[in-house]
Every structure is written in C-alpha cells, then in structure tokens.
C-alpha cells in the first residue's frame, strides 16, 4: 500500500467546520451531509473540509485532541511505556499533516503541535523497529501488537513480510529431507 492510499482512507474521517454559506442537506453515496448554515458548526469528512477551505467557504475547527496540553501528555505517556499506547485517532498522523498544511491559520500554536506529533511518531517508530528486529532475530512465528495505526503498519509491511519469508525459506532449507524439494529460492 502506498502512503497516499492510506491518506486517502484517512480523508473519510469526520471533522468539524464552520461553514460560510448555506445549503440544504446533500445526499451523497457515502451518506447524508447535514444542512449548512453560516457560522454554525457541522461535521463533514476531511476531503470535503479541505476542498471548502481552499475555496474559502469555511473555517476549520481543530479536533479536540489537537491541543498542545493533550499532545504533550500523549507524548510523555508514549515515552514511558514499552508497548504502544492508544492514539487519539487511528489516523492521527495523516489528519495532522492535512490540517496543518491547508488550515494552519485556523489552528492555534500549529508549529508546536507539529513538533509534538512528530515526537510521538518518532518514539512509536523506534519501538516498532525494535520489536520487528527482535521478532526476526528470535525467529518467532507470530506476534501480537496492540494500538498500531495503519500508517505505521504500512511503513514496515513490505520489509517485515519479505524478511520473514526469507527467514522461513532459510529455515526450511536447513532441515534435511522431505521438506525441501528445490535448492533454489
């Protein structure tokens, strides 16, 4: 999977905006989107929010977890624990990137938020690398990891599966006899 595909999936998440135009309920394939009234908050998917923002037809309201205090707590929690802690949103990285790229003027203290999210991401990636390393080294057959988001899984997916494949092939070739029929891999 490409990171762009993961971002595409993330754009379905709902976010709050304050519209600057009025429109009745619209019926889309994915569901209904509520009536739009100027100044009143309404929930829409991220793809629509970004489009409206670019056309200057709305003002984005940052999600409640996108706040310096909360993100600091999350980052410290992540650093303390050895395992992965639950994240405020399964698409926290993509949402941060999208909202801060297109609507940073609606989000207070945007630079600090970007730094905090990046710190959390770095810590989690380090843990992921460590656990993948120990997985391969100890030649485990299966492992269970909680609280990983799709973007993080996507970064190691290709490497991990291919590495384990290779390990498996090497292992089966070591055992003599019926399990290996071919010398080439």
């Amino acid at each position, binding site marked *: 999977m490409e990171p762009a595909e993961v971002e595409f999936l993330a754009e379905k998440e709902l976010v709050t905006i304050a519209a600057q135009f009025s429109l009745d309920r619209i019926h889309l394939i994915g569901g209904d989107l509520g009536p739009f009234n100027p100044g009143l908050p309404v929930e829409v998917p991220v793809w629509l929010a970004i489009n409206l923002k670019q*056309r*200057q*037809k709305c003002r984005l309201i940052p999600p409640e977890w996108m706040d310096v205090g909360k993100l600091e707590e999350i980052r410290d929690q992540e650093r303390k624990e050895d395992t992965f802690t639950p994240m405020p949103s399964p698409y926290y990285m993509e949402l941060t990137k999208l909202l*801060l790229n297109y609507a*940073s*003027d609606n*989000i*207070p*203290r*945007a*630079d600090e938020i*970007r730094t905090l999210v990046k710190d959390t991401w770095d810590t989690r990636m380090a843990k992921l690398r460590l656990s993948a390393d120990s997985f391969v080294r100890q030649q485990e057959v299966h492992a269970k990891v909680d609280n990983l988001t799709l973007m993080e899984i996507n970064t190691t997916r290709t490497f991990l599966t291919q590495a384990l494949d290779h390990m498996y092939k090497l292992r089966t070739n070591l055992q003599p006899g019926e399990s290996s029929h071919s010398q080439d891999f």
Partner: protein
Amino acid sequence: MFVSDCRREFYDLIVTQRVLLLVASDVDALCACKILQALFQCDHVQYTLVPVSGWQELETAFLEHKDQIKLLVKQDDDLDVPAYDDIFRDEEDEEEDSENESDGSEPSEKRRRFEEEVIERTMKRRQRREWEARRREILFDYEQYEYHGTSSAMVMFDLAWIMSKDLNDMLWWAIVGLTDQWVQDKITQMKYVTDIGILQRHVSRHNHRNEDEENSLSIDCMRIAFEYDLRLALYQHWSLYESLCNTSYTSASFKLWSVQGQKRLQEFLADMGLPLKQVKQKFNSMDMSLKENLREMIEESANKFGMKDLRVQTFSIHFGFKNKFSASDIVYATTSLMENVEKEGPETTNFIKALDSLSRGNLDKLHQGLDLAKKQLRAIQQTVASCICTNLVISQGPFLYCSLMEGTPDVKLFSKPVSLCLLSKYLLKSFVCSTKNKRCKLLPLVMAAPMDVEQGTVIMVGIPPETESSDKKNFFGRAFEKAAESTNSRTLHNHFEMSIIELKTEDRSKFLDALIALLS
C-alpha cells in the same frame, strides 16, 4: 465599457460564463490577473488566459476567440473619464418634415409654421455644432495627455473585498501592483501615499494576530508588515555597497559616474561608521550590531548629504524562516523575468514564468528573477554613467534626446519597453543632477535604442520632465502620432502606452525633425 459597481455589473455577470482573460505585459496587470485567477478558482469559473503586449495582439486574440461569450481586458485605467453625455449623444430622431395633412388650413398659417420650423431647425443645428466643438475639445484634452489612474490590482482587490473573499495573498498582490506603479514612476507621490494608506488598513485587518503571543500563527503562514524602509533597490538580497551604487536616487545624488562622486560615497559610508569590508559583503552576512540601527543611521547621514527622501513607506512579506521580501524586490524580479531577452521556448514562457514567480510556492523562479534584476540594474547604471560621461544626451530644443548605439554593451536588454523606460527615467534623473543648464533641467526626454537588428527597427520612448511636483502626464503619445503622420514614417504604435513606438531606423532623422518642429 465603463462600470461603476464592480460586483453587480461585472463579477456576477461573468461568474456563470466562460471567460477570456487578456492580460497586458505589465507587473500591475499580472498582479490583477493573479487576484482574478484566485477568485475564479474559488468559484469554479472556466477561463482562458492570453497574454497580449500590444493593440495588434489584442485584436488577433479577439478575432480568434470571437465566439467566446464574455470579453475582459486588463489594463491601466484612466480617471477623469468625461461624462457620458458629453461625448455620446443618442441619435435623436431627426426632425422629419412633418407631413401634417392639414387640409384646408390657411396658407399664411402654414407658412408661419414653416418659418418657425426653419428657425427651430437652425437653432438645433447651431446647438449641435457647439456641442460637437465642445466634444472635440474634451476629447482632445482627454487624449492629449496620457496618465495612470488607480492600480488595476487594487481595483481587483477591492472587488474581492466587497465579496468578502479577500485573503492575505490577494492583498500582497495588490501591494505589488501599487509598488510597480511607483517604481516605474507612473503615479504622483500624493497618490502613492494615499493608496498606501488604504492598503495599510487592510494589512492591519488581516495581520493583527501577529502581535498576540499566545495564539500566534504558524511560521509558515504569510505575514505582511508595514515598513518605513530604505529606498535602495534589492538591498537585502545584495550588498549594501552595490545597492547604493545601483539605485538611481543615490547614484544620481552622489553623481557616481565621476571620481568625485565615488569619493563622496566613501565619505558617506565613513560618516556612518560602516567599514568598507562589511558594506561590500552580502547584506545578510553583515554584522548584527551594524544592521540594528541601519535605517535611522542612513537617514541621518543622507540628510547631511542632501538626500531627503531616502526612506519610503512600503510593505514587506515574511513566510517561513528564510524568506523575507520587500514589495519593490518582487517588482524588480518580476519585471526582469518578463523581459528576459534569453529566448527559451515560445513567446509566452517569459510571461508564464513571471506569473508563476508571484506565487509563494515558486521561490526558485523568484530567486532567478532577483538575479536577473541585479544584472539589469547594473547594466542600467553602467549605461547611464557612460551616456553622461560621453555627453550622449543632447538638447534638441523642446526636448532632450539620447540614442543608444548598436555596439553598446547590454544594449539587447534595452530592446524591451519597460527596461527602456526605466533606463530613460534613471538617465533623466542623473542628467538633471549633472547639468548646470537651468533650462535643460525642465525638459522631457526622448530615448531611442535598437530593437531588432535584422529588421532595422528602433524602439523610441518619450518621458515627461523630472520636476518635484510633476503630475506625470505624458503628451508624447499624440506627438509621436502626429509626427509620424506628417512625415509618412513607418512606425508601429502597437504598445498600450502610446508614448512607446517602434520606428524604422532610416526614418529616424526625419521623424525627429518633425517632432522638433511640432513641439517648439
């Protein structure tokens, strides 16, 4: 078409149609075009963009797209348009011979009525003749002088503001459009200061959040700041020394083409306590201690040396950690990109490149433009210095005349109208400072430069005289036309500014003689 209410009579009409956008080759027009493009993108309006550099191209583009629904022309607009009724007169029904069948009316009455009608008709005819004479006078006054009104970028920004769709980006383009008018000396100082006041209100409205420390914006957001900045061209992207040498105001005041002038410059720097080594470095690498009070120090010393207007009110833009530009920087960069003589591809690439460089994402084009602008300014200064030292500026009676020879270095740069105009203005300023002849100081200047060697054409520009309180009205447009007519010279009055024409080299001398005769 004259429009008084931008929104209702103009924007609301075109927003539902497909639009053809014809844009002149002028930084002000480019800025107005960018604002309009941003508005069109918000409202999903389909448009075609065609750059035009003269009346002929305008006609060809119009004929090509004749079946397009709406036509939009971007240009400088003129103020003081005379009242509609003074110029156009709806065709009134001509007096028809009233064929009243008045059967049986007495002949004397009929004759009396007939006489009255004759008298009425002569009165009307006389009124009409007077009206036409007045109309000719008004039109002559209107078309005799050429001058510039409000910047079209500012007009477009007004439109966006009325529709509440104005953004900081659009405000910046309006600022650049106004600064372009000031750099090219097209508007009076009073108008410039008034327009700066108008824009400053918008700037404080959009950028007041920068002072609030708690909720300050991300560093990547664009910020505009009002500055009472130095008038030195490109000084933040160059070294202070180069900038002092290549800005027309300082170079003319110091008379830097002479040895004495160079000495005065050294004295000036010594007076401020700036070591030569520091001043010749890139501005960003100068010592912080020297840069701190630079503006005030320079202003003080400049006052001592007779330069009272070294600081000017302007705006600067700031985004990211590295990027800080002043409005005049952008104007110089965009002009030199648009008039780049190195041909790279079809005709319109320069236009498109210049248009792109106005967006914040295309910093590499902007930096390329800044480099070209430095080359252009240096070339202008050197040409001005050589013209003055070799006394190439001669007085022809009613005007001064200067002609660039073909072998002059960098003469290719001056085959473009805006560069040639800049050169002529700088030359006139320097000449006024260098000459002792009081009468010559009040004369306008006509400048000629070779345009196309194979076709043997020359580009000629006329600029009004350099006085303290000039109203920047330029009468050379009409004068050139009349002179060309009377001598049957092969001229091309193609440019939107009537005071810039192309001429065959062979016809030059007789054209000039006719011009002298006309203006004396």
